[in-house]
């Protein structure tokens, strides 16, 4: 930062999005754009160097986010954004690595990567857009679809139990866990800002309506109605025991910041441990030795 500039250097929004790719592909009223706006807002407010932010996503409606952000961005394969992000982080520890993911991406096909990255406390941030279904492929049932909800591959209603993602994240080792709905714009932004400022595995779930598929199929009104509905049904309980934040079909949504702890990351542990065991033979990694 230049010395003669006393004001905080905030990132302008045009610097954050690939304007040459607008219009985007999302349906009118889709909540994904709202979450992206919160993300952009968080980056704008933070003084983070955008050259040092990488955004990755898998496949899905949410997976398209990586294509719209004007940062180093990789649009990977379905479910694999987390391990690619792991590679990016380990190759380049100075990066702030963010994974934008659908619920299917992160907890269905990519569930194993999700829990392992959390277990290792890999220093990456996950923003999960939970729209309770596989939207991109036409509204199929997902690991997050509440019992009783209808989906294109659960035409008689879903009878499987669904994942409680904050609980899964915490149990796996995440150091920051929050849940909001897409209408909690300021809160989502704040959570993202907090997570940007943290080291460790962070997980932010945003309950977001999929107007075209989930809402229509379950006769839940249009996007705005559903968004409002989610908002009204939500109850902020910071620090809630994640075991209690299960989501039922059209039931109460417990939101808030559930976990915010500090512990050494994968690279911290690696450097600490190998340094101790190997002494001078060890080449500390990612601590300006390159």
């Amino acid at each position, binding site marked *: 930062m230049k010395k003669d500039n006393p004001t905080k250097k905030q990132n302008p929004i045009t610097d954050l999005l690939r304007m040459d790719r607008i219009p985007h592909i999302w349906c009118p009223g889709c909540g994904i754009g709202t979450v992206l706006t919160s993300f952009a807002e968080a980056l704008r407010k933070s003084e983070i160097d*955008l050259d040092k932010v990488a955004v990755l996503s898998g496949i899905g409606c949410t997976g398209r986010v990586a294509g719209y952000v004007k940062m180093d961005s990789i649009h990977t394969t379905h479910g694999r954004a987390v*391990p690619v992000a792991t590679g990016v982080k*380990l190759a*380049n520890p100075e990066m702030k690595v963010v994974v934008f993911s659908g619920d299917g991406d992160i907890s269905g096909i990519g569930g*194993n*990567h999700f829990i392992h990255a959390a277990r290792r406390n890999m220093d990456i941030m996950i923003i999960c857009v939970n729209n309770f279904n596989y939207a991109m492929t036409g509204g199929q049932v997902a690991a997050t679809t509440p019992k009783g909800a209808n989906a294109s591959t659960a035409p008689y209603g879903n009878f499987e139990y669904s994942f409680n993602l904050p609980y899964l994240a915490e149990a796996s080792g995440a150091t920051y866990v929050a849940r909001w709905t897409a209408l909690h714009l300021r809160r989502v932004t704040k959570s993202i800002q907090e997570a940007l400022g943290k080291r460790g595995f962070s997980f932010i779930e945003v309950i977001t309506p999929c107007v075209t598929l989930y809402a229509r199929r379950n006769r839940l009104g249009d996007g705005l109605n559903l968004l409002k509905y989610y908002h009204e049904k939500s109850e902020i309980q910071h620090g809630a025991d994640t075991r209690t934040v299960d989501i039922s079909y059209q039931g109460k949504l417990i939101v808030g910041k559930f976990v915010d702890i500090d512990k050494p990351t994968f690279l911290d542990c690696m450097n600490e441990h190998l340094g101790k065991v190997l002494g001078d033979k060890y080449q500390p*990694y990612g601590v300006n030795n390159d």
Partner: protein
Amino acid sequence: MKKVKADPKGVLSGSHYLDGDYAIAEGGLAAGCRFFAGYPITPSTETAERFSERIPSVGGVFIQMEDELASIAALIGAVWGGKKSMTVTSGPGFSLMMENIGLACMMETPLVIANVQRGGPSTGLPTLTGQQDMMQVRWGSHGDYKIIALSPDSPQECFDLTIEAFNLSEIYRVPTFVMTDECVGHMHEKVVIPPAEEIELVERKWYTGPKDQYLPYKNDKDMIPFMIKIGDGYRFHTTGLTHDERGYPVINAECQDVCVRHLNDKITMNADKIIRLEEDEIDNAEIIVISYGITSRVTTRAVRQARKAGIKVGTIRLITVWPFPEKRINELAKKVKAFVVPEINYGQMVLEVERCAAGQTPTVHVPHCGGWVHDPDDILKAIKEAAK
């Protein structure tokens, strides 16, 4: 193409007695590989073990991932993060990697995968040899793309060809494979590792022009686009979707045509530069035996006996298996009485030989379903039969 000397930190110069798996790890370290992500699988695990032991004092990261899907994914991330990266696996793990091998091809990501082949299908023969993934390496991921694959016949070549694989992968920005097998992987022999200054490495094709003019998929004169790394301020985008020069998705037939042709042509048009063969007594040969990897050693034994028996036999050892030496085989097909192709599978590369022979000469396959190398007598018998 910028050439540099190997970083002495990773080079274990001297004479060693190593198995092929260890030699692959040493080749990777000598080539400057500083990121290894893998998942244990017999008979390739020793490479991962060696890496995990050696990398802390060289400077780099070893990470054991949760599965092979994650291993190859992490490699792609690490390469875009600026590291040279590799992994090793065998049949079942190789199958799991297929989707993201396609992603690496699509994103033109240079990386190295060693496959220490075992007998398949499925769990097959975890501890015994095979050469049964030779077509999978070429065609295993969906869509049209081309890769480079090399086949070492000894621990020494495991070392040498791993370095070469890194160089080729950087030159052509393509996943490059070291297709060895359990026999070579687990066999101990002398491996000479030269001094670092004698190891020539190809540096990544870094972009150096103005930042705002960078186009991640704009081809240079040699057909290969320039690369940058995450964090250097280019704010680039890359995707597994069909994309234009900017790396932006374009979902139509025109863009697909450009994209797919490029991924294939950059290898096909450079095939002559990539392909390495070892030919022996080809000129007057009536019969040519074409083989690769460990099978070529066993073949040599059979061929010597055949020559003693008065048969004019030449040999071709495929060091580069893919791209396949189409032109050469086609040319030779006009001259010889037959090709004989022994390989430890039920008929894979022989299909390529047949295709290239294009009906000009018969092709005799000497199959072996895996679990052991050929009995040289079986190859000899095939040569004699073909010579009749």
